[in-house]
């Protein structure tokens, strides 16, 4: 096999595989997943809104809940702002990776992870507050099982929180992976896909913040 051994080995074909549509496979499958995820959140938000319209007080009887008193709109506005800003950092991280600037990438991804944790922390705090209520101020507790509003609210926002947590885990993975020496400019696509997911989760939150929180103050 001397002749074949002397052949120079070509670049691996799959690194920049040509696709029929020109969109990379990984990016296309992420877009498809996000399209599907729209339907997941669409179903949850619809469930929430239908029950919201059916029960103006959020439960079958008046007095079980007091939604605007329970909500802590200042805190939620703050965490919404934090999540928006994390999307900004994510965009910078993707751009840094496209340029191959690993240090800038790490800095910005750490920022996204930090902001993600702040958001999740706010949500945990908020959930705990809601479940306990505030007997001194006369705010009744809101739990998964004491009202329809509680059920739809916690499952919807909890599903979103799970998405954020998965995103944070993914980013932590990318952060540590960037020290392995295997992360090059070719990995920018992987970072970009993570970015797509992160921006989507952010956009979903803007919708949830509007139709679940802000609408209560109309």
């Amino acid at each position, binding site marked *: *096999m001397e*002749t*074949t*051994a002397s*052949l120079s*080995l*070509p670049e*691996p*074909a*799959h*690194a920049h595989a040509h*696709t*029929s*549509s020109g*969109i990379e*496979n990984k990016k*296309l*499958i992420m877009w*498809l*997943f996000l*399209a*599907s*995820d729209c*339907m*997941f959140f*669409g*179903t*949850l938000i619809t*469930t929430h809104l*239908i*029950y919201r319209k*059916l*029960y103006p007080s959020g*439960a*079958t009887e008046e007095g079980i809940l007091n939604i605007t008193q329970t909500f802590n709109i200042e805190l939620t506005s703050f965490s919404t702002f934090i999540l928006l800003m994390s999307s900004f950092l994510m965009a910078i991280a993707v751009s840094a990776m496209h340029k191959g600037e690993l240090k800038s990438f790490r800095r910005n991804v750490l920022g996204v992870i930090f902001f993600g944790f702040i958001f999740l922390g706010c949500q945990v705090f908020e959930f705990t507050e809601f479940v306990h209520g505030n007997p001194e101020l006369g705010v009744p507790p809101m739990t*998964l*099982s004491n*009202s*329809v509003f*509680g*059920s*739809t609210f*916690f*499952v919807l926002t909890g*599903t979103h929180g799970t998405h954020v947590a998965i995103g944070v885990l993914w980013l932590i*993975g990318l952060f540590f*992976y960037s020290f392995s020496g*295997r992360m090059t400019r070719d990995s920018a696509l992987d970072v970009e896909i993570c970015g797509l997911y992160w921006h989507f989760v952010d956009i979903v939150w803007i919708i949830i913040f509007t139709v679940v929180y802000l609408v209560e103050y109309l």
Partner: protein
Amino acid sequence: MATDYHEAVACKSQLPHIKSALGLTRPDYTTGIADWLTTVDHKKIGMLYAACALFFFLVGGIEALVIRLQLIIPNNHLISAQLYNQLFTMHGTTMIFLGVMPLSAAFFNYIMPLQIGARDVAFPRLNAFSFWVFLAGALVLNLSWFFQLAETFGWFIPVDGKTDIVPAVGWFAYSPLTSVQFSGVGTDFWLLGIQILGVASLAASFNFIVTIINMRAPGLTMMRLPLFTWMTLVTGVLIIFAFPAITIALLELMFDRFFETNFFHVEKGGQPILWQHLFWIFGHPEVYILILPGMGIISEIIPTASRKPLYGYPLIVFSGAVIGFMGFTVWSHHMFTTGLGKVATAAFSLLTMGIAVPTGVKILNWIGTLWGGRIRFSVPMVFSLGFIWMFMLGGMSGIMHSAAPADAQQQDSYFVVAHFHYVLVGGLLLSLLAGIYYWVPKVFGRMMNQKLGYWVAGMVIVGFNVTFFPMHYLGLAGMPRRTHTYWSGFGWELWNPVATVGAFVLGIGILLCFIDVVRTVIKGKPCGSDPWDARTLEWSLPSPVPAYNFAAMPVVQGRDAWWLHKHEAGEEARLTYEPIDPHGIHMPSQSWWPPFGGLGFLVFGISMCMHGAGVVFAGYGVIVGLSIVVFTILCWALEGPGGYYIKPAALHAEAGAMGETQSSSEFKG
């Protein structure tokens, strides 16, 4: 992640043991069971899907036959009412999710990449993962039978004392029957099984859509795609938009059952009708998810056997897409009797009548294809013609249901049972059998017994009609579905035994077909690579298809490329091939993680059910299962796609210097 370089090998057992990025050796060189467990080859995964589907068809068939035996005479007490409920629930769920969908997935997997000139699907490991997760879901559903058996021996007692351990809530599991108040662990098995199957279907669909959009051979534009590939695409789109509705509905049901939420708890303000809406927003597209692959198969076989191009190709494509779109707009026709209001009922009535139009267009096009063709009545063709006829009958009774006042009379009667079995057995099953007879020669290079094939076709079509046509009468005479027995004196005594006899003829016919599949795999008569003189690219390959599919990538010159190549005059009608990479063909590496991920879902599903049954420490099993899934995903990402190089047989002999003309003559078959 770069592939480690090595010299291309002729057979993968000669591969060097290359370590992946994780530091583990990829199981590329394996043979036997380990090879089947770790395979990422779309053809092997297709065969695994098909084997499971045939097995579960038999399970679902036996369940159906027991149901028919129970109904053979009035006041029969062969089985208890609860077992009857469990049988019809599991029959429906098994046939839809474990029989038809995986058999369609088997065809998608095996045939679609070959039709578009691809070496594999876009994400080979994800494809393997879909299969193993499917198997996990199927096992979660069906292991309930073993727990039920344990319960009858007194070895297993759920904490709530309810004895329905096999699901007994019907395949659409209407609320509030599914609440903890009214049903036992069976509902947990049902909801977790379906949830896990949903993960598998979604992952597979993402993969197929990307494959079709991105991995077509040069020259294969969308409007040159074979119809079966088109229907795979439409089905994939339907799955990714329809399954989220059931996933969320199941999530809400799971929260209701495990964490005391109030989505469907009436006394706390939950609305059972919400379940019906969410279920049917999934459930009606699901009907098209089931039937469109069958329509795709028929659209391949009829032009081949008529030796004519498909009549009105663009119309059939667009009709398929329109059916897919409109499938989302008609769900409430399953709920006419719930009191939707006049406007909603009228709108859904009209839309339901409207969806018959693209379906009719397709039927007309198939008949148009037959017109003037030199028809060969091969076995797949006989099944296909049966499909057109039976499916049309099912469609007719479907249009009857679209009139809401008529539907109010037919609701929950055997008329509905007759209708959907005409669509799903008379239509879908016939097309799947047609697909089996058509493509088994490609998969194994062996011909099924054609004489027996005609007998199977006769028995299935006759047996099917004897079973289900009388159900139209029974339904209109008022016999309700889902009741485990009936009294004499209602005029139902004649047609029930007739239907039971028909069901056994149908069952024996299908069993004969499956036995013949097994016989063919072992010692069928070898056939050439193109026994039907077919039209699409998969028939340009040797049978059985080599691991790398295409030694040289074809350049597609038109619709029905292989037919043009064989029968059309002129140089421009010949298939050409791209030059071969001298280093060999890049193949994706095998992986242990997909089956490991499936195991995680299995542990998760069973532990959740056991937790619901009050088994101590089962909650830890849930955590273990989910941890396995997370660990799998992490290792999967870190090991990377890998890959190795293989030399095609012809190329190997020529030591890497084969030109275009040689490779094309190689494949003239």
